[in-house]
């Protein structure tokens, strides 16, 4: 048997010309620290996104034709690393990650020209209209209707859990164009002007007390048929598009982020003299193992993509791993602080502006949003392990 060592495929080194160029650009144009006043943050972020776009540094995975960079996957990783390193703001809304891949793949040429560049430049913020009060995990049962009247749809219904909904200019929505019982077969992908008559956006106060999400109400909102992506009733298939392997880059970024968070928590425990407690140390060992495995998983996924174009099974479980980790680390931190962990940020005795307590509350959403843990486990079991679909549930 012969074996030959294969040259390692790695992300290009820091001396790579692209990285150097990007770093120079980031140094020259860095937007500085975010403004204190929350009302100034939106225009500040938009300004930065426009700077990126105007200099050709927006949309690493996007086609050049629509203002993107069309980078190789290896260079996309470099891009992600450098952006994280520079601590500059990321895209606004969820359009770039969720709607753009669908539009790039299924939109008409005219739609692409009209929508993509302004989305990438941050001129218009795109937000998602998928979930409804009665359609969460069972999204195919959604009820917001779009009734055809000539060359327009008339949209009625309600969406909920729209991230950054209050800042939205454009809503990419799934609406029912088929019969009430048509499920996946009667859903269309519609792009709706958030400022159109009949659209009402209400901030939704979540359990943290904050307003990250919004509810959106549609009351006889008229939308041109030309603003439908893909065929009528083919929206479900379109909505499940993603631009390949962007998640892998995201996982690596999260691994680096949580490595930093865990180190900060260790420092806090050390300062408070708690690291000598064997029970505390063992909890840290557990988190240390997990945070490193999150990185190993991301690296293995990326290695697989670079070598074979295949993300493999590790990528399918990485989100489950990360969501459980972020809940556990925050709860452990709160426990570690004892009663001081209960203090809100305006209490003078609050530790680190109450970041751990806020994290404890905020990460309740981690195992719910973008697919609950339970639904994801079902998906992994069926799609990766090939276990049979529950015959009591509607077909996928």
């Amino acid at each position, binding site marked *: *048997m012969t*074996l*030959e*060592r*294969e040259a*390692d*495929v*790695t992300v290009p080194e820091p001396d790579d010309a692209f990285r150097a160029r990007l770093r120079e650009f980031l140094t020259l144009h860095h937007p500085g620290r975010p403004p204190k006043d929350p009302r100034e943050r939106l225009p500040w972020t938009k300004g930065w996104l426009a700077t990126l776009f105007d200099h050709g540094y927006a949309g690493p995975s996007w086609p050049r034709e629509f203002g993107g960079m069309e980078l190789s996957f290896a260079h996309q990783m470099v891009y992600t690393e450098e952006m994280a390193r520079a601590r500059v703001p990321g895209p606004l809304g969820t359009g770039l990650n969720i709607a753009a891949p669908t539009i790039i793949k299924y939109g008409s040429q005219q739609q692409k020209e009209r929508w993509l560049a302004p989305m990438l430049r941050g001129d218009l913020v795109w937000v998602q209209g998928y979930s409804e009060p009665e359609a969460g995990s069972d999204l195919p049962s959604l009820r917001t209707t779009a009734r055809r009247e000539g060359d327009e749809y008339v949209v009625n219904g309600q969406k909920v859990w729209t991230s950054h909904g209050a800042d939205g200019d454009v809503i990419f929505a799934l609406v029912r164009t088929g019969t009430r019982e048509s499920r996946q077969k009667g859903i269309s992908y519609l792009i709706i002007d958030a400022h159109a008559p009949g659209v009402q956006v209400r901030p939704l106060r979540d359990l943290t007390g904050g307003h990250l999400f919004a509810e959106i109400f549609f009351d006889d909102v008229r939308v041109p048929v030309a603003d439908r992506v893909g065929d009528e009733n083919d929206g479900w298939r379109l909505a499940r598009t993603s631009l390949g392997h962007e998640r892998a880059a995201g996982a690596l970024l999260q691994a680096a982020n949580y490595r930093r968070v865990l180190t900060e928590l*260790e420092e806090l425990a050390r300062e408070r003299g708690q*690291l000598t407690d064997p029970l505390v*140390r*063992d909890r*840290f*060992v557990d988190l*240390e*193992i997990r945070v*490193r*495995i999150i990185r*190993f*998983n991301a*690296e*293995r996924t*990326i*290695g*697989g993509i*670079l*070598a074979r174009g295949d993300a493999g*099974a*590790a990528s*399918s*479980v990485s989100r*489950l*791993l990360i969501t459980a980790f972020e809940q556990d680390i925050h709860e452990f931190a709160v426990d570690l602080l004892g009663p001081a962990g209960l203090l809100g940020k305006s209490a003078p005795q609050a530790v680190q502006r109450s970041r751990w307590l806020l994290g404890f509350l905020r990460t309740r959403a981690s195992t719910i949003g973008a697919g609950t843990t*339970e639904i*994801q*486990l*079902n998906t*992994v*079991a*069926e799609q*990766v*392990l*090939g*276990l*049979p*679909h*529950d*015959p009591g549930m509607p077909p996928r």
Partner: protein
Amino acid sequence: MSAGDSTELDELRQVVREFLRERSASSEVRRLMEAGESRDDAVWSLLSGQLGLTGIAVPERFGGAGYGPAELGIVLEEMGAALLVAPYFATVALAGQALTASGDEEAMARWLPGIADGSLTATLAVGEESGSWDLAEVAATAVPTGAAGDGWSVTGTKLFVIDGHTADLLLVVAQAPDGPGLFAVERGAAGLATARLDALDLTRALASVTLDGTPVVRLSVGRDSAGRDSAGRDSVGRDTADWLSAVTDLAVAALAAEQLGGAARCLDMAVGYAKVRQQFGRPIGSFQAIKHKCANLLLEVECGRSAVYHANEALADRQPDAALAAVLAYAYCSQAFTHAAKECIQIHGGIGYTWEHDAHLYLRRAKSSELLFGPPARQRTRLAELAGI
């Protein structure tokens, strides 16, 4: 990219997997187990001769293929999946790597070629009552013998020695007057008594090894014949500690690879059964309760895989985090394998509780592997130290 994922390693994996499918099926594992055999001679001869697997991690100048932890890990992963009954882990992963790490040219030249070609089986005996590989817990003593004072004899009892009752060569750690040292003794030596212990794992034997003034050969671990290291210091004990630390890293990473293979096989068995077992008129794998168990096991298997491949790559390349990566892989895979073995029994229900079903063989191997080098809490303590927590 991670070791374990490359095309060449995939080819190695396929060859080993195919071989074990043919030559180490469940019926064969059970035949050897019931007979109390340590191996099938024909299978051992094929895997060492035709496939060259015993020489995979032995340096080329001693008749091996000169590969390292990454390649060895792939072989062990497959052997762990198949529960191969053979003294491979003890001979190749423990004794072979321990000899190579000793740097003792004479000892390597004497024994490594036999390990490489499969003619010699061997093991490493460190732990005693606690099973721990901590030198502080080694009580066996070595004393100089002979008129010239160049001979040695060892007295003491080693426990939990993997395949210790059948090994042709035993590498024994004992306390010499100048500090802990490494000693070699061949089967049949005077005052050497070995016995298989009645223990949980039925497909890999643990033995007690008693030495009573047994004549042994002292290995020079990382030092010259005058007992000095490269800097000229008399640092015998220190060298043995460094050697043992390096060997432990290699051993736990190798064991983690084997655990990964075992866990993956438990998941396969559970998923395979959940697809065909019908209750309430439908396959039990269509129930969420079963799906979620299986998906969670997949998560642990994939995390274990990432940890093992990273560790073996780090060890092969001598990366700064190699020791930590090795302990991490072992700590993680220990839990993952035992969890997978328990869930495999649970998902199989009644049939999984029978002697005839293989599920318990994996549970036995899993729990046993978890405790082989001492209580799991010690691994976690070492991990905390290495991570600076």
